[in-house]
């Protein structure tokens, strides 16, 4: 895997800021850890939900990951961005939880939905689209789900996602490509209705 490009100025400042927050959290300053939790709670919960589907399970996994990160903060390399380091822990926590959970599988996506089934009530349109997207996401392989969420939702680079998922950058590109192809069909069908 190629080394990532040097981060731009804003990213460098954020990285320095996060390294400082981590150092303070390690020294026992809980406010510093609180800032990190606030900053990454959203992405951690979304990534966990992309893996697990169920929001309660996702929140439990995100919480476990954040507490695990707190215990392991000493292992964080401050020369690297904090986000991918934390999200790797989140991804592992969510994957572990999904493996342990043998039941409560998400039902396969209803073909009628993807093919543009009956249009739901207009007041529930947004909710229905969200539901369809979650179902479509659940149909994708786990790694593909995480890749597209990290790239299109969270704005991470291919290199950063490769670090999170522990796969080559080229594989990340491929996963994002295939996930997008599937999800764009769904969105296009929705717009056409």
């Amino acid at each position, binding site marked *: 895997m190629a080394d990532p490009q040097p981060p731009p100025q804003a990213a460098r400042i954020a990285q320095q800021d996060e390294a400082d927050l981590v150092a303070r959290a390690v020294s026992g300053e809980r406010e510093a850890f609180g800032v990190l939790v606030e900053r990454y709670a959203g992405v951690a919960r*979304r990534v966990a939900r992309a893996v697990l589907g169920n929001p309660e399970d996702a929140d439990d996994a995100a919480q476990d990951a954040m*507490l695990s990160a*707190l*215990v392991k903060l*000493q292992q964080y390399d401050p020369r690297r961005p904090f986000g991918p380091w934390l999200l790797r822990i989140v991804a592992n926590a969510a994957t572990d939880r999904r493996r342990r959970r043998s039941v409560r599988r998400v039902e396969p996506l209803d073909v009628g939905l993807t093919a543009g089934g009956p249009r739901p009530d207009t007041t529930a349109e947004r909710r229905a689209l969200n539901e369809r997207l979650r179902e479509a996401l659940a149909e994708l392989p786990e790694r593909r789900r995480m890749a597209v969420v990290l790239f299109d939702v969270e704005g991470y680079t291919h290199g950063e996602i490769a670090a999170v998922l522990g796969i080559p950058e080229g594989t990340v590109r491929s996963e994002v490509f295939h996930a997008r192809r599937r999800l764009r069909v769904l969105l296009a069908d929705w717009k056409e209705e």
Partner: protein
Amino acid sequence: MKDPLPFDHRPDAVLGKALREALDPGDAPAFIARVLARAEHVRVASWDAVLARWARAGVAAALFIALAGGYFVGRAAASPAAIRPTVSDVLIAPPAHPGEVEVVLASVIGNN
């Protein structure tokens, strides 16, 4: 770096927005409060704490090894003196294998 694959490098804003909304769990303050409350009971493992833990185990192991070593060395040093017979012991004590000597002598006399 030249990209080997013709994939779009920019995030898809429309898809990203739709997915974000679909995955948004809501009630962020409650989640953050929950994590921070649990974090109060979590101890951060600092290097000095780790070293201190290993140091305690190391000191205990070294003490045990020293005591065990001292015991065996002391026992080894003491045991030869304890079992070494004195001159009088040797003279008074009966021979270790008296029967064998008598048998040999008897057979020699008998042959003569």
